[in-house]
């Protein structure tokens, strides 16, 4: 029974990881930008949601909209003002990374100055676990998470396969120059990628505020897990990121059966390490890692 419980808990955690990883993977896969500030987008969305529900007392869907707007403004804004400028000059892969890291530091401290450094959370009955069958405690939030994740991933899949924008985005991932030849503007497509990637973060941020609680430093951890899940799942593959996120969440929780709780973080990264060595392209990635 403990195994089943841990499995379910891991699934919940995994959903959160899957959503953040999906946004990161999308951006990295399509634009080749190592958007290390994805964690900052997460923190901004989380605090925006919390502010609108807890401080302003408005209903949750208003807060969700507000959080989405905040996330998009930040993600797209960062792309336009920082990343695009850097890309125009002769910059190495890591120049963007350092700039993004700078952005994370700025965001973390601005939020600390406004909201204090403590922990914030929204209490809702959604996160309370109830005993379904003896020994198995499940919170309604898990069904909500699964549903939300399914909706978002479904929408993403539709977007990528069926719409012109989606096709353009996939073309961008394969060959930016070719996109230009066909009369499309890679810059505008990249901007859309950032917008969509940032939107994907919002449900995860909301779940975090409700289930786990947020604090200004929470972005760091999220970025690392997103990176790990993106690589394990295969860069640019949404389904890969999703499956990898769930895999990491479940592994992290199930690991408790085997190792002490202090090793659970190392377990996630051991998985990453093993994948890189054995199958660097990830679960669904294209095989051009060598």
């Amino acid at each position: 029974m403990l195994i089943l419980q841990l499995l379910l808990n891991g699934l919940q955690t995994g959903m959160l990881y899957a959503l953040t990883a999906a946004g990161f993977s999308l951006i990295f896969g399509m634009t080749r930008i190592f958007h290390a500030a994805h964690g900052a987008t997460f923190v901004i969305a989380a605090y925006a949601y919390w502010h609108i529900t807890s401080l302003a007392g408005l209903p949750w869907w208003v807060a969700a909209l507000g959080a989405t707007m905040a996330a998009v403004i930040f993600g797209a804004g960062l792309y336009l003002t920082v990343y695009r400028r850097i890309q125009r000059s002769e910059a190495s892969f890591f120049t963007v990374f350092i700039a993004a890291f700078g952005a994370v530091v700025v965001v973390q401290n601005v939020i600390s100055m406004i909201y204090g450094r403590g922990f914030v959370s929204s209490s809702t009955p959604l996160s309370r676990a109830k005993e379904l069958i003896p020994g198995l405690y499940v919170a309604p939030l898990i069904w909500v998470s699964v549903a939300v994740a399914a909706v978002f991933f479904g929408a993403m899949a539709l977007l990528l396969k069926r719409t012109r924008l989606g096709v353009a985005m996939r073309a961008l991932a394969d060959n930016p120059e070719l996109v230009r030849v066909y009369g499309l503007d890679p810059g505008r497509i990249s901007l859309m990628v950032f917008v969509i990637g940032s939107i994907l973060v919002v449900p995860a941020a909301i779940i975090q505020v409700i289930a786990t609680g947020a604090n200004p430093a929470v972005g760091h951890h999220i970025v690392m897990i997103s990176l790990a899940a993106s690589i394990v799942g295969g860069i640019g593959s949404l389904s890969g990121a999703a499956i990898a996120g769930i895999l990491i969440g479940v592994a992290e929780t199930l690991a408790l059966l085997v190792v002490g709780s202090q090793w659970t973080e190392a377990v996630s990264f051991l998985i990453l390490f093993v994948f890189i060595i054995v199958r660097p392209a990830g679960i669904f990635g294209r095989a051009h890692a060598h």
Partner: protein
Amino acid sequence: MTSYLLNILVFVCINGILAVTLNFILGYAGIFSLAHAAFFGIGAYVAANVGLHVGPSILLAMPAAMIVCALLSVLLALPALRVRGEYFVAASLGLQIIAVSVFAEWHSVTGGLGGLVGIPVPEIFGFRIAGAGPMAVLSLAMLALISGFLAVLTRSSFGRNLMAIRDSESASLAFGKRIAATKVLSVAISAGLAAIAGVLYAFYVRFVNTESFMLDTSILLMAMVIIGGTGSLWGPILGATLITLLPPVLSYVPYLPPQQVGSIQQIIYGMAMILLMVFQPSGLVALFKRKEKSQ
């Protein structure tokens, strides 16, 4: 006041050694490693254990730390270097995280999160190196030695091989260069020399614990190299100086409300990184090169 400035100088040199050695694999070999702080830490823990259990001799601690780091780095490099640059980043990230977990849990060797305290004052041939002054002299000397060594190395045929591999692996392969061996050797050299920074740190602060060797430090070291400018000799030293000096300089900015001082300093720090990357992405050293050319 002098001892305060000397204290900062010691940290500038320690960071300088780390930046210069990271630049060796990053700028010259094209290997992006996020695990440099882990090797810094391993070097420091080895030195701490030597100091606590064997004796305060730096001449004993340095080779010990260098060997341990070089060997461990080979363990990372051998499997991970088979994959392309971007994936190596993630592998090194994994190694860094795992290393921190080991540092935090292996209580008998690392003291766990409490760390190792009471490391003795170091000695060379019986001569005590106590305080910021003598340590600054030693650190400067080590920085000079290591930079000099790497400068010579990069101009040698080994260095040229490295740069050829960075620029095009397939071409190098066609020329019969032994890619894997060269890359692994460069990682070993980089890690082995970074260990020296760890030794200096352990014997100066005389207290080591996990917090100084985490991912944040790795990222900061990378920032030093990139802000200073990769692929050059002075770049990483410039970057290390700048980043090490920024917090103390910021602590003298007047009129900041005391409760927000820390956050404001960090915000300036972060903005500086962003602006530097946007306006001078090839690093500050490129500024001087351009000036020289225009003269």
